[in-house]
Every structure is written in structure tokens, then in C-alpha cells.
């Protein structure tokens, strides 16, 4: 029983050690409640915790948000995370102040800092304790959200990070199995750069827009699918189509959709070698070329295997 109490005391101490709490004091209080007064363990834990919060003026949030390793995160939890900012991306909306990937020694996860949270900026490569943040799931991926009640504290500590191999993939080969409808000659909101179909931005409504050429599609190697985005620079190199040519084509055929049709005709079903960088949702292509298959060298290998 004494050992059990030591164990419980250790758990409480872990949560509060930053506040000058003494382990001996915790153990003594637990012993009194459990052994002398025969209070059930969980009641005793709660009582001691409440006492410490009052006595040491510890913020309540600290209780709901225990320090958690990234690999142990589940959806809809209030936690604190000690992690390094490994990647920052351009926010896709003015509602997002910063977004990217944070990582610790157990894994990596996407994070979002809402503009409304009014937090100081985090820097790529720096480590922080993100206190009282909440997790949720978006498009099948877990993410950590920094809200107004969260705290970000920079720490002077190097964290050895482990990053998901898929998000590190820089090059792969696969077939372009789908081209999304919002590819081709698209309209973008001049305020936020989002796709503004028919001049309507999903955030800003009816807006001024500008033309852009892009490809959104799916590359698939039979084992994994990659949602890819390629810009006009990549398309120029790949199929000699740039924004000017796309505009010309649309004008000549009196149809913006002609550009999409052209992209599909030239690219659908083709094997591509792509380079770029992945975030958790998209693979942003920086270079793409058509695969020149080396079939002859593979043939003998296969025949050998299936003798």
C-alpha cells in the first residue's frame, strides 16, 4: 500500500513540479487520507490536487492539459505539448495566423494558430511548450489547435524530432489517376489567393480576382495515393503550358474549361516522376517529368523471381 501511495504521489508531483510543490508533502497527505481515513484512492487524488491548486495558485488549465507526447495524442483532447516547429506553411486563410508541423521525439503533427488567439509568432526550428491546446481531426489527420486560452512558451532546448516518412518524401513515381475539376485556368481571390470560382471567394464573397494556372490531382503508385498540387512553372516545364498560353487557349475556344480539358488530355493516366515537399494534405510539386520507363532491365529480374 505504501508503494501504491508513492506511485500516486509521483503522478501528482509530475503534473505540479514546476510550481515548487514537494513530493513528500503530497505523499503525506495521500497517506493520511487513504490509510487513516480510508478514503477511496481517486477521491484522495482529487482532494490533494484541489488542495495544491488552491494553495500554490496553479492555473486550472494545467490540470486539464497534461504534458503529452505527440505519438499519444488523440482527437478532442486538451493537452500541453513540448515540441519543435519543423515546418511552417503559408496560411490558406486570414483566419489562420500560422500553420505547419510540430514534432517531438515520438512523432509529428500539424498545428494551427488562429489569428484570433493573438499569440506571438513561432519560428521554424525553435522549440516551445504549447500549453492548453486542443486536438481535433481534419480530413483524417490529427492537428493541434492553439486558441485564445492556450499559452506558447519558447524554451531553450534542442528536441530530437521524428518526422513522418510520408511528409518527408521528396520524390516518387506514380500514375496521375485523377485531375480535379478545380484545375486549369482558375480564378483566385485578390485578397487571400483562394480559388474564387465564378469570382466568388469562399471567404470574401464577390471579389476582384486574377487568373492562375494550376493542376490539382492524384498520383498513385498502387500502394499510396498522393494529392498533388502543381503550379504554372511546373506545367510549363512538363507540357509547355504557361499562364499566357492557357489564357490564349481559353480565349480562342471561348471557354476557360478548354485549359482543363487540355491538361487532362496531356496528363491523365501518364506516369510521372515528381519532386516536391509534402504537408499532411498535399504534395506540392516543384518539378515533374514524364517517366521514361526502364522496362528491359526489370524483365529478367521478374522472370528470375517467378521461375
Amino acid at each position, binding site marked *: 500500500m505504501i508503494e501504491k501511495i508513492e506511485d500516486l504521489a509521483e503522478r501528482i508531483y509530475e503534473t505540479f513540479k514546476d510550481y515548487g510543490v514537494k513530493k513528500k508533502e503530497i505523499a503525506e497527505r495521500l497517506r493520511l487520507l487513504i490509510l487513516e481515513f480510508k478514503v477511496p484512492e481517486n477521491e484522495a487524488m482529487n482532494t490533494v490536487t484541489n488542495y495544491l491548486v488552491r494553495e500554490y495558485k496553479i492555473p486550472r488549465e494545467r490540470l486539464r492539459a497534461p504534458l503529452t507526447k505527440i505519438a499519444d495524442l488523440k482527437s478532442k483532447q486538451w493537452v500541453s505539448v513540448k515540441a519543435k516547429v519543423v515546418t511552417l506553411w503559408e496560411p490558406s486563410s486570414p483566419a489562420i495566423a500560422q500553420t505547419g508541423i510540430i514534432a517531438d521525439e515520438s512523432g509529428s503533427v500539424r498545428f494551427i494558430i488562429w489569428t484570433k488567439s493573438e499569440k506571438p509568432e513561432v519560428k521554424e526550428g525553435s522549440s516551445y511548450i504549447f500549453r492548453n491546446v486542443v486536438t481535433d481531426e481534419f*480530413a483524417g489527420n490529427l492537428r493541434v489547435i492553439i486558441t485564445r486560452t492556450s499559452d506558447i512558451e519558447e524554451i531553450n532546448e534542442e528536441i530530437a524530432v521524428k518526422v513522418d516518412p510520408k511528409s518527408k518524401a521528396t520524390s516518387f513515381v506514380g500514375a496521375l489517376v485523377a485531375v480535379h475539376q478545380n484545375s486549369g485556368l482558375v480564378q483566385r481571390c485578390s485578397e487571400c489567393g483562394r480559388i474564387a470560382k465564378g469570382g466568388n471567394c469562399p471567404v470574401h464573397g464577390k471579389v476582384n480576382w486574377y487568373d492562375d494556372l494550376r493542376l490539382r490531382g492524384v498520383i*498513385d503508385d498502387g500502394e499510396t*495515393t498522393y494529392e498533388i498540387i502543381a503550379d504554372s512553372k511546373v506545367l510549363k516545364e512538363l507540357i509547355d503550358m504557361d499562364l499566357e498560353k492557357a489564357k490564349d487557349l481559353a480565349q480562342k475556344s471561348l471557354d476557360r474549361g478548354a485549359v482543363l480539358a487540355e491538361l487532362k488530355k496531356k496528363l*491523365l493516366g501518364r506516369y510521372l516522376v515528381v519532386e516536391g515537399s509534402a504537408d499532411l494534405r498535399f504534395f506540392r510539386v516543384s518539378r515533374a517529368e514524364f517517366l521514361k520507363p526502364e522496362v528491359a532491365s*526489370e524483365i529478367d529480374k*521478374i*522472370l528470375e523471381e517467378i521461375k
Partner: protein
Amino acid sequence: MNFKREVARRVFAKELNNATYTIKIAGEKNPIYVLTPLGLRCNRVFVIGAMIEKYEVRPESGIWKIRVADPTGSLVGYVSNFQPEALESLLDIEPPVVVAITAKVKVFEGSSRKLVSLRPEMINLADFYARDYWIVETAKSTIKRIKDLETEATEDAKLAKKIYNPNLEDYKAAVREAITKLKEEYEAFEEFEEEEEDLDLEFEEEEFDLKDLV
């Protein structure tokens, strides 16, 4: 929201056509999978092969039946208004021609037996190089499945063995045949290239002689 796009699997017609077993995990939005005799759980496939047939099922029905062949057999596909993207490109394509297709896999329960068919999402013209690469890619993944079945390495392999107990030699022979055909083609092609190189050389020499004369 937990949407994850289904991978487009690479599988030969012979294996896919012999599939009869479907897997449906409870839940309205969960996809239906087809389990092939070699233990591939698939919902979508990517095929590059020869489109050898295309006709409207009944006049004015708007439903087109296509047949696409790979070295092991052929697959049937149906394209209608429900696949607008595939339908649009199909109208411009006349067999015989090499095509690339991304399609959903359906198992249709006929009166006497179950039939596998494709619902193409996209169809586009392809070339022989891509077709050959597809054959190599598909042969590799088929071999991996054969090995997994032999060792019962995965749950799906165990399940497939229980349901189909497939004759693995049969599938090995099909892969071997497909690859051997390809090998013969490439050897013929190499000889042809060598001949061409010889011609080039002769031509260059001739040019040189001409210059000398001047």
C-alpha cells in the same frame, strides 16, 4: 470527416475476373471492397491496356460497354452519364487503341455466376511504353501477393486462401507468360535499334566521303 481516397490498385484481368467475394464494413459511407483470389482488397484500379471493344448497350441507352485487354485476359467496363468525365473522353476514342483507365470495381451477381466489371472514372489515350511499364508494375505486385499467399503473411492472404484456395501455379504461369511476351518484344526492338545504328554509321561515312571530294 475521415475521408481517405482509395488507392488505385494494379491487378491483371485474370486475377480480377476470378474475384467473387466482396467485403463491406458496416457503416453507410464505407466503400465496398472486392477481394481477389490472391488476397488483394480493392475498390479502385488503374489499368493500361488495349481497348478492343466499344458499343452502346442498346441504341439510345447512353450506356457504353467497353472491353480492355491486358496480356492475361480482358475486363469489361460500363460507362454512362454517372461517369461524365469518362463518357466525354470515351466518345472520342475508337478501338483498337491503348488506353489508361482509373475505375471503380463492381461485382455483379448474375443468375449463374458473379461477374466483375469496371466503372471507369477517367479514360485517356496511352502509349506502348506506359503500357509496358504497367505490365511490369502489375507483375511485381502480383508476385508479391502470390508470395504473401504462400506464407499466409497477411490477414487478407489468409482470407483469400480460405475462400478461393487458388491454384498459384496458374497465376505464376500467367505472369510468366505476360513478361516473356514483353521480353521477346524488347529483344526484337533492340535488334531493330542496332540495325538502325548501323545504318546511321554508314550514312555518316558517306557524308564524310562527300566532303573529302569537295
